[in-house]
């Protein structure tokens, strides 16, 4: 089972609940705006605590309100591409990319800086400050940063939303390879039918 997630959580007036058991390598999380997709990803990442439930990824229990298990984010070994980038503004692009890479144990890394730079096409940006990047450039750096941390599974929140078709194609090919060759579980949020149909092996719906 790649993702075995049963969570519920109140946020203001919203109540987010998901019951998902997926064997597919790439599980697309689908649902209208405000349904709680980002919140679910945050719960899987350990950034938002579910009110109750259980989160198991690839056999490892990350959270279980019954047994009191709640791994801190840094021990969940994930790669999270946030909906809103979240690059570190005080680090140049290179140091943003290498932040998780330096923290990962060498044997867990499965991508090098050069590889990431190549397929993301961000070579000329390495010495730039994040604030000078265009929307799509920042998004690509954020993808690179998540992959370089050598994660055991990926959370991607609309990772391709502001990229042009050519870039999108390049990155989708890499995601396919991660899915098929490395066989990492991926939880993927997107509103784009084409993207989901091409990448997803399982589709989960959230909300009405």
């Amino acid at each position, binding site marked *: 089972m790649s993702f075995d997630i049963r969570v519920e959580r109140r946020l203001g007036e919203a109540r987010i609940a998901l019951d998902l058991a997926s064997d597919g390598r790439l599980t697309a999380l689908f649902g209208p705006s405000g349904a709680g997709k980002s919140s679910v990803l945050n719960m899987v*990442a*350990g*950034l938002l605590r579910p009110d109750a439930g259980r989160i198991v990824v690839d056999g490892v229990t990350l959270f279980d309100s019954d047994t009191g298990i709640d791994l*801190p*984010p*840094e021990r*969940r*070994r*994930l*790669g*999270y591409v*946030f909906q*809103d*980038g*979240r*690059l*570190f*503004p*005080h680090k*140049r692009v290179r140091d943003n990319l290498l*932040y*998780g890479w330096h*923290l*990962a144990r060498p044997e867990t890394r499965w991508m090098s800086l050069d590889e990431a730079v190549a397929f993301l096409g961000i070579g000329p940006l390495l010495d730039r*400050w*994040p*604030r000078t*990047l265009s*929307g799509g450039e*920042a998004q690509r750096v954020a993808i690179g*940063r*998540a992959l370089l*941390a050598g994660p055991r599974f990926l959370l991607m929140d609309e990772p391709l939303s502001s990229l042009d078709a050519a870039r999108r194609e390049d990155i989708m090919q890499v995601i396919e390879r991660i899915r098929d060759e490395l066989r990492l579980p991926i939880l993927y949020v997107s509103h784009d039918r084409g993207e989901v149909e091409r990448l997803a092996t399982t589709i989960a719906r959230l909300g009405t």
Partner: protein
Amino acid sequence: MLRIGTTPNPSSEEERLRTDMTPELWSIILLSLKVSGVAVLLTMPVAFGLAWLLARGRFPGKVLLDALVHLPLVLPPVVTGWLLLIAFGNNGPVGRWLTDWFGVTLMFRWTGAALAAAVMALPLMVRAMRLSIEAVDPKLEGAARTLGASPLRTFFSITLPLATPGLLAGAVLGFARSIGEFGATITFVSNIPGETRTIPIAIYGALQIPGNDAEVTKLAIIAVLLSLGALLISEILARRSGLGRGSHVL
């Protein structure tokens, strides 16, 4: 006692000012720099810790801690000096303990002057740092955690550097305040040449002698120049930190 020139009756005022840059004056300047420098350096981590607690902590008695930090600002410096004397004097509880266990004496020593300066600078440093810490987006800290950083590493690699503007502002404020510190210092560690006679205390001495305005002016100008230097250094560091305007991303 600050009539230090080698020529007792200088021919002109200009001459007097020049000849007055005597070794004794230099030692006062160096002492002020040492006391203020040590005070700021030692207070930085304490102030940052307190600022972090006040910005991010949730615990009972937080407002009380906040009030405690502001204390040296609210009390007239003489009272702060008196409290230091009671606590850290050779007969005070902390003072005796420091002497017995570490062989450290603060009374009448430059270390005591540094402690007084540190205490007086603390509230200013904490506030500046706290403002910057509160402005750090916790989402960035969350992002660091997902990339494998422990809370401690997150703190040092994300929170701390992002709070650089506050750190620098705190350091500058603290240094300027230390350079100007008088009341608590003279009350706590008196006016000992070479140990606790910093620039403000030398100014006090000069003020006691009628018609000594030139001496006072000279010392005041030196104090201003020292903190102008600190200001310039902080501006340069601020520019280097890469945290300029509009550093918000996406």
